[in-house]
């Protein structure tokens, strides 16, 4: 007896159906860890002083990164192995909508510490880990093999790789978790003079973000600074906010939340769906390889056919 071509094609089609059905197969449970820590960055309070960048370099013992200009300044144009956080500035150009009231704005780039981190899902050797309590996404160089798949996976282009070193590492913001043990907070929030970068439990930060969105424009209000739990406040005149907390729902949410008076797309932040890409990828993978049942069944069938057809 021999298998007809038709049978083979049927088999292939079945495999395809299983593959495709995998997309909606399971709902993964990815929720905010109980003691999740994060940062609320309010671009309307940021003055672009870049103290956070300097503070970050001191706390993480990083070299200056004069990329992109005359080496006079520590001015990275992007996140790099020497810069875990970067302040960027949007400036309205001549071709853009003149009616737009906000002409300029800052944005702080750093690891978003996703609720469902793509890098953690992607890493083959578990070098990227999400702390079960604080939710901080950490990197373990002892595990890392340097495949850079985390970089492909990260929707915010955060992890960077030391291409210039013979024994390289992945470098990313780890929310100053080395300072947490000492009772300190993330250096960028510690040094922020205006409270634009605010550290604290994500639940509190979310409440605070919602409070700010509800504030009427132009009113003098108190804004918590440095660490939301300490009660230290700074007074500012409220700006007109975009009624959107970036990071509340994006790809399952992030522990770094962003507020701005400019549309986030202008600040280089993509419009992202609520379902994470990691979830889509894992669903396919788990559907196909759950308990290795499907591959084993396929192997059994193959063994049967090969044994029979072998001469």
């Amino acid at each position, binding site marked *: 007896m021999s298998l007809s071509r038709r049978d083979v094609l049927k088999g292939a089609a079945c495999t395809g159906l299983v593959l495709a059905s995998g997309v909606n197969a399971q709902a993964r449970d990815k929720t905010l860890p109980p003691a999740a820590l994060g940062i609320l960055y309010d671009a309307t309070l940021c003055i*672009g002083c870049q103290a956070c960048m300097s503070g970050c370099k001191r706390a993480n013992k990083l070299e200056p990164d*004069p990329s*992109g200009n005359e080496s*006079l*300044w520590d*001015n990275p144009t992007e996140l790099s192995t020497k810069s875990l956080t970067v302040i960027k500035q*949007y400036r309205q150009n001549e071709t853009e909508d003149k009616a737009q009231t906000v002409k300029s704005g800052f944005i702080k780039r750093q690891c978003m510490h996703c609720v469902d981190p793509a890098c953690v899902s992607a890493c083959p050797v578990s070098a990227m880990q999400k702390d079960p309590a604080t939710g901080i996404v950490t990197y373990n160089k002892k595990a890392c093999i340097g495949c850079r798949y985390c970089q492909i996976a990260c929707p915010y282009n955060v992890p960077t790789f030391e291409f210039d070193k013979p024994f390289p590492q992945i470098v990313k913001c780890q929310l100053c978790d080395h300072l947490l043990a000492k009772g300190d907070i993330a250096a960028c929030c510690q040094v922020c003079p205006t409270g634009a970068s605010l550290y604290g439990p994500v639940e509190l930060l979310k409440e605070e973000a919602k409070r700010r969105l509800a504030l009427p424009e132009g009113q003098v209000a108190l804004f918590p600074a440095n660490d939301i739990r300490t009660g230290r406040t700074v007074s500012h005149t409220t700006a007109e906010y975009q009624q959107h907390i970036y990071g509340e729902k994006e790809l399952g949410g992030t522990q770094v939340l962003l507020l701005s008076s400019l549309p986030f797309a202008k600040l*280089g932040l993509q419009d992202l769906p609520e379902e994470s890409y990691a979830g889509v990828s894992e669903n396919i993978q788990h559907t196909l390889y759950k308990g290795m049942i499907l591959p084993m069944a396929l192997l059994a069938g193959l063994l049967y056919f090969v044994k029979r057809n072998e001469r």
Partner: protein
Amino acid sequence: MRERDIITQRLGISRRDFMKFCSATAVAMGLDASFAPQIAQAITAARRPPVIWLHGQECTGCTETLLRPSHPTLDHLILDLISLDYHETLCAGGGHQAEQVMHQSIKENEGKFILVIEGAVPVKDGGVYCQVGGKPFVDTVREIGPKAAAVIAIGSCASWGGIQAAAPNPTGATGVPAILKEQTVVTIPGCPPNAQNFLSTVIYFLTFNKLPALDSKNRPLFAYGRLIHENCERRPHFDAGRFAGAFGDAGHRLGYCLFKLGCKGPVTHANCPIQLFCEVGSGAWPVGTGHPCFGCTEEGVGFNTPLFTQAKITIPTPAATPPPITTEQESQVTPLATTLTGAAVGVAVGAAMMAGKKATSEDEE
């Protein structure tokens, strides 16, 4: 006699002015103003510490600059607070008489006097290029140095050779620390140094009977702990990228940063922007007058790096203007890479075509 009268009589100033001076000195040294009474006591002590002041290869600019301050006048301080037993420029006497006074003072105050050396010490050819009283200066330094309680090298020449040590250094000019290797020689570099820095060092020694904290080049940290660049009044212009491009251009007239004119502020440790010079008010220091710092307090910079050569920024900090949201990276396409790609694709396509042709022709045979 009451203390007040002593001060009034000896220094010719009111007690109030004197205490103000003591507080100011304390602050200059990085001490709390509450040290002022202690300083006052040290200065007014009955036994004034003897000072021997030697001159080597120098221009006397350091002495000159010490004569400038007027709050109180330094001549008062030098003549009344300390016992300046020997100073070639200020000596009333001369020749053998002066020499004798010096040797007598050294003998009487061995281990107690402060030795101040101004000027470089030439060592080439047995040190014949600088002799006082028929004796090579290097021998004098070696002889007197070990007998002093403290040795202070004032000025860049005494600190590391200064302009004399610039290439080709025909006389083998050397700094005092290199001659007196066995002991700590405090250096107060500068061309000229700030009088306040010297004065503060001496008073610190008188008050606490020890030397102030020093950096790796034996400069007092209170004066040389930070880069000029860090405290410069024109720093905001640097951060914003506003530079003078040439002397007298628009940027120069607007008081922009002098970095591009060769300012050595980013590599020079000194307190010039804070302390200023000569008590004549704001702007009284080189950068304040529109001239780039030439790095006189930094060995290897002043008299070594050409005046208009740009300094290297060792610890860059963020500029005032953050980068834009998206920075287009430079194209990586190189002619060689494109050639290689083209050649590889060409060879592959060509080989496939040839093989295909061959296969066809064989098939037709």
